[in-house]
């Protein structure tokens, strides 16, 4: 056992040195260096950080509850407390249940910069613009960016909308990257003839796959659909259980196929055309008009939710990432360090994950950056036409759509639209900067 470990460690070191010789570390360095030269892209990245900050602290920037308040002799942190309540760790005191926070008599109080939540309704101020006279007690309560038909504060909506926009980009591209990198990697690495399986193992894997789908998703379909109805968290939890079940069954069948291999019967090995299969799959996904597909699925889902929209976007946009990864792996699999790792007898998934993929991911970043921009655009389009996103969720797109009701409400047309524009632009600029940075022709 010990000897084996030492041997393993030596193999590791050898592979590392081989990788270093291929100048991979310095490749990343060059990319970073070139990217930093592109001032616009760097500034765009900074704007993204500002957006991330706003999204993370949206509850502290715009909230109906005070940040800190002294009420009836004791000090409270209502915004912080809300997190604890949402997580189920704490409960509101009796005096704070179903109260209008604005009307409480505090000893002293610190309000967030914007004392509204996007869903707060101000019946005294509907359709007021930033420069109109507003029916508010003092400047502290002014709607700086105006309100909509129900008196929702636009600034609060913008701040909380940032969170949704960034989350859409993150979640949908996260899903797309997982699927795209997986398919792209196996298509590129194995190609059409590298993966050889005996007929017996193919049958076993197919049976295993069908059974795994059956037990992980088929029999659990009611549990999963019920969980969607309850909450996003419980759905994720049930989904995770399904995935674990799926993997466990597949692993079980893998051992079964290993056992079969030990039998004295000689099965014929045939190559699996993974590349052709996956390219066909990509072609299928690409040939369905994305917006139509998303709108049809979103309209069919019984209970609209922004998370379902994110998942659908992720499931339909992975093809670009898969193509990039495939092309990179086709190149990398013939490089020396991969061949060396092969010769050292590493397991193939280990070569893919540890040696090939880290060197293939830089072009994928480009696809991800542009993908985030288009995901945000798709989501705002959906909210704009009112499909798939529930009516009570306030997003930039849904705010913009309200401008169509009253054409004098210029602030509702300009502000959310401008936010969408800026977000899309900066992600495109980052993608552009990455493309330039990785263009070998620019490398001097």
């Amino acid at each position: 056992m010990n000897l084996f470990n030492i041997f393993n460690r030596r193999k590791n070191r050898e592979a590392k040195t081989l990788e270093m010789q291929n100048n991979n570390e310095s490749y990343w360095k060059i990319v970073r260096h070139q990217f930093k030269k592109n001032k616009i892209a760097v500034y765009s990245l900074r704007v993204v950080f500002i957006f991330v900050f706003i999204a993370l602290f949206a509850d502290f920037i715009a909230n109906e509850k005070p940040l800190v308040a002294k009420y009836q002799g004791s000090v409270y942190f209502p915004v912080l407390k809300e997190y604890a309540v949402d997580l189920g760790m704490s409960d509101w005191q009796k005096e704070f249940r179903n109260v209008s926070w604005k009307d409480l008599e505090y000893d002293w109080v610190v309000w967030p910069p914007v004392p509204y939540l996007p869903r707060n309704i101000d019946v005294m101020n509907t359709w007021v613009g930033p420069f109109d006279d507003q029916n508010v007690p003092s400047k502290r309560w002014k709607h700086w960016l105006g309100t909509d038909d129900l008196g929702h504060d636009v600034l609060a909506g913008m701040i909380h909308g940032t969170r949704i926009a960034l989350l859409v980009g993150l979640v949908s591209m996260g899903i797309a990257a997982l699927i795209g990198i997986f398919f792209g990697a196996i298509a590129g690495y194995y190609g059409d003839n590298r993966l050889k399986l005996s007929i017996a193992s193919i049958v076993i894997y197919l049976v295993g796959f069908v059974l795994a789908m059956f037990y992980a998703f088929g029999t659990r379909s009611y549990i999963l659909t019920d969980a969607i109805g309850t909450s996003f968290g419980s759905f994720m939890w049930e989904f995770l259980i399904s995935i674990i079940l799926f993997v466990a069954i597949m692993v079980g069948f893998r051992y079964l196929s290993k056992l079969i291999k030990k039998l004295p019967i000689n099965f014929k090995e045939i190559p699996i055309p993974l590349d052709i299969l996956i390219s066909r799959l990509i072609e299928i996904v690409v040939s369905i008009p994305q917006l139509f597909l998303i709108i049809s699925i979103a309209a069919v889902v019984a209970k609209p939710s922004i998370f379902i929209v994110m998942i659908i976007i992720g499931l339909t946009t992975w093809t670009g990432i898969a193509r990039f990864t495939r092309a990179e792996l086709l190149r990398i699999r013939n490089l020396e360090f991969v061949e060396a790792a092969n010769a050292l007898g590493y397991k193939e998934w280990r070569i893919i994950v540890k040696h090939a993929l880290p060197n293939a991911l830089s072009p994928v970043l480009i696809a991800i950056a542009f993908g985030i921009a288009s995901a945000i655009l798709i989501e705002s389009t959906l909210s704009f036409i009112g499909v798939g996103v529930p009516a009570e969720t306030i997003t930039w797109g849904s705010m913009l759509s309200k401008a169509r009701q009253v054409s004098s409400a210029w602030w509702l047309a300009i502000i959310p639209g401008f936010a969408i524009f800026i977000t899309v632009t900066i992600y495109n600029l980052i993608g552009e900067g990455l493309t330039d940075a990785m263009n070998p022709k620019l490398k001097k």
Partner: protein
Amino acid sequence: MLKYIFKRVLIFIPTLIVISLMTFVISINAPGDPVETMLNQNMGGDGQSGEKLANEQTYIDKRKELGFDLPLFYFSFTNKTYPDTLYKIPRKAHRETLQRLSYEYGVWENVGQYYKNLQKLELKVFEVMPNEENSSKLRKIKDNLSSLYLTYEEDKIKQTVENIEFDIFKDKNIKLSVEKEFFDFKNSYEHMLVDKKTINRYIPTIYWYGLKNQYHQWISNFVVGEFGISYQDKRPVSSKIFDALKWSMILSILSIVIAYMVAIPLGVRSAVDKGKTSEKIITTGLFLLYSLPNFWVATMLIQYLGDGDGLGWFPTHGLGELPETAPYWDRFFETAYHFILPLFCLTYASFAFISRQMRGGMLNVLEMDYIRTARAKGLKKQVVVWKHAFRNSLIPIITLFANIFPAAISGSFIIEVIFSIPGMGQLTLQAIFQRDYPIVFTVLMFSSILTLVGILIADIMYAFVDPRISFSNKKS
């Protein structure tokens, strides 16, 4: 060449089958009962038993006419609790409840018996003549019974059954006429509870249904060009789509032609002038245009140039309302006037995109050795650019040309919705909102086919522009 095209078309077939399956799966999971939508009929209902029976019969007839009385697919692969004869139950909502019940209790025969007895009991209750003292009781029983069709939670069913029992035995008249049916129903209900086999959930089963199924019917109709009828106004889907497609086609083709005509010279110019200030401004401008969401631009244009509260320069709604009898040119100009704003919104984005691609392609080519050679031998710059570089820089934008066909269907989606142009976008969106699925799925299938055709055309055009690309023994 022909062989290549033939091969490509053959490859389309599995792709199309997968797409049709996806479309079909979405359509059968769509909420709402299509038969009910078509009949504008509500479930349950009041009234007398005769009326109820007649209602049920029209429903069953309509369902048969639409072909929804068939099994869904050639086979089903599910667990053992899945009811193999479920498709025989007419109402969609009932099917969903029964499938769930069967999953909960594990034995479809028992659940089917429970459903049959429930129906018998309901019918019997409807036969009871209401009089003054029991009419409210009767009403309550009917409500409870019809809610049972939609309930699968164990405690809720139990509660409802108890309520029904209580109400039936309160009134002598009702009790006398429905007692037998009620006990039958209650027995089958209790049997279902006692004979619970949850282990059946974990036994995989395959049922074979054969060729007579909904998918087969749908896809064979699609192949021969019968797309069904719209649930909404009962017009054939094909004529509705044809009417809408006309406007979308005009809009998209105009926009693409304009975009290419402006974008190609501009892209070439900005590549040739690389480094000049004017070029930098153009490039930045194009980039910003490319990132501008077109629904935002449309909203702004309507607000500021539209005929509402804006400057009133352009109409913002529909295509004009001149009667058919008006002179042709009058109608033409009226429509053209209505087209200006939507056309602008559609064009600027693709225009920006194409010129950026053109610029990129041109820049790549201009760095090549043969361009330098051509310049070195003394050819004029104009000649080099247009004769030597241009043709080779076209390759990247040919891929974009493939997008024309799908764009004709779905490209103008939002713009059509915003400007209320009766094209494919508006048709599809309305169909989605009104759950008019025959239209939605025909559109989805059609646009997929057009995309595949577009990809094929792009591949062929590659060969014309770049003779180095050959179709025989293509290596990936």
